[in-house]
């Protein structure tokens, strides 16, 4: 589904990612773990075309998509929910969601997708006429995720989806992720909430200082002493 080969990314002369390799199969949930500043967001942004890589390649469904613009990748079926959310603040919740289906032509499909998103997040339906900029942090999070789902993507990339959410809403997000897999959506998720993430993910990569230092199934990793100590807070 998604393959990243020897990716190098730099901000000016400051190199952040070094030789990152990843391979994500169809229908998988894959987690990317790592401390603050490890380069997770940088990796996702360069996969999505928001940051041009210095070297290396990105393949999506076998096709080389390195250097493609974000809008092209979006139309190919990749939805990215960024850390900053990037919602349209002066528009209503519903307009934000409708824009999520910007390139979907079939009106009936847009309506049914909207209904599904509202079922997933009833809070959004209650607030559908509210301006997105006046929503609470958690509500914006839901909106950003909902907007990402509106185009029925094949691959959804989530950067810290549970950040700033209350425990109930974190639960909703992880439940949503689980239901998505039954719909054959591939998911890449970056999370600080390591415990919960390893519970839903099938595999995970661990990043440190811009490089992948470990990879394995969630089970292996949650048993690993190093991961336990560094990310799960167990001794």
């Amino acid at each position, binding site marked *: 589904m998604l393959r990243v080969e020897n990716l190098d990314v730099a901000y000016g002369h400051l190199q952040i990612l070094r030789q990152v390799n990843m391979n994500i199969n169809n229908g998988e949930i894959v987690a990317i773990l790592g401390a603050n500043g490890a380069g997770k967001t940088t990796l996702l942004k360069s996969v*999505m075309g*928001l940051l041009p890589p210095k070297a290396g390649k990105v393949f999506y469904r076998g096709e080389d998509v390195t250097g493609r*613009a*974000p*809008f092209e990748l*979006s*139309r190919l079926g990749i*939805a*990215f929910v*960024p850390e*900053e*959310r*990037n*919602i*349209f*603040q*002066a*528009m209503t919740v519903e*307009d934000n969601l*409708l*824009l*999520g289906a*910007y*390139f979907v032509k079939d009106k009936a499909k847009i309506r049914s997708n909207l209904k599904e998103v509202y079922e997933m997040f009833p809070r959004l339906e209650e607030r559908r006429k509210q301006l997105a*900029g006046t929503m609470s942090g958690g509500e914006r999070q839901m909106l950003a995720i909902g*907007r*990402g789902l509106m*185009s029925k993507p094949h691959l959804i990339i989530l950067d810290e989806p549970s950040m700033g959410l209350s425990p109930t809403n974190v639960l909703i997000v992880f439940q949503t992720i689980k239901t998505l897999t039954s719909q054959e959506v591939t998911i890449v998720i970056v999370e600080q909430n390591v415990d919960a993430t390893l519970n839903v993910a099938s595999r995970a990569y661990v990043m440190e200082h811009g490089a992948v230092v470990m990879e394995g199934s969630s089970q292996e990793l949650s048993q690993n002493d190093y991961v336990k100590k560094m990310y799960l807070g167990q001794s």
Partner: protein
Amino acid sequence: MEVLGQVWDFFATSMMRGGMYSLMAVGLALVFGVMNIANFAHGEFYMLGAFFGYFILSATSKLGLPAFLPPIICIAGAGLCVALVAGIIERTSFRALRKRSKGQWLMNTFLLTLGISIILQNGSRIVWGGRYRGVTRMWKGDFLNSLLDYSLPPDRLIAFLIAVLSIGGFVLFLNKTTTGRAIRAVSQDEVGASLVGINLGFIHTLVFSLSGLLAGIAGASLLSVTPASSFMGTMPLYKSWFVLILVGMGSIGGSIVGGLILGFLETFATTYLSVYLGSGSSEFVCLAVIITILLIKPNGIFGKSVKSAVE
């Protein structure tokens, strides 16, 4: 009847001017709100509209069409031609600049628009010469006169109607169509817009062309009031900047109201105050009012803190 005629005259002139300033200011606000460009070549779009309008009108009036058709073709055609020119300018200059530099965008594009303005002014002068090209009257029919029983210049009222229709259509487009919604999305969050699949390059070119379209319509429909000449764009450019400063940068709804306010202020000053203040009275009064408003509300009358450029 004399007084009534004066009142009519005052209103017709105010509304014509106001409508045209609104048309100009809306395009300026759009480009500023969506592309973050302070376009100082906007007045040249107005000038090109007048020239294109003049040539189209002279060509079509020879064809023996019904009297109302040539002006319509003239205004629509001029708008479309200017939109095309604006689109080409966007593709060749701003898009190229966007690829090469990210920093200092506002300053660099400002300088670029100044350069474009000088090229268009002098280029048009080389091509079309220094002669003024205007028409004494655009709309031939006398229906308004017979209706109201005294002489009323229909050109000015029709120019106002055209402004209302163009702006109305534009606002509908912005709010009711998918593409319009995409334009608003780009003005609010470019990254978010590209993530939902909006082609930023396409929207930028479209927005610049639309601003050209509106300015071209303004230039062509006032052909009988201000004849086409190479340096005619400066005045409407400054006036539309007045409007933006007055109402707050980048607010489209505000630009419409602001244009009308300016139109009335100016006409009031020239009609009633120039006796005391001399020929510069309209500039004096407008600037005085703007300074007063900015002292009270530094963000403009409709200025807001949330970035919601295109509404």
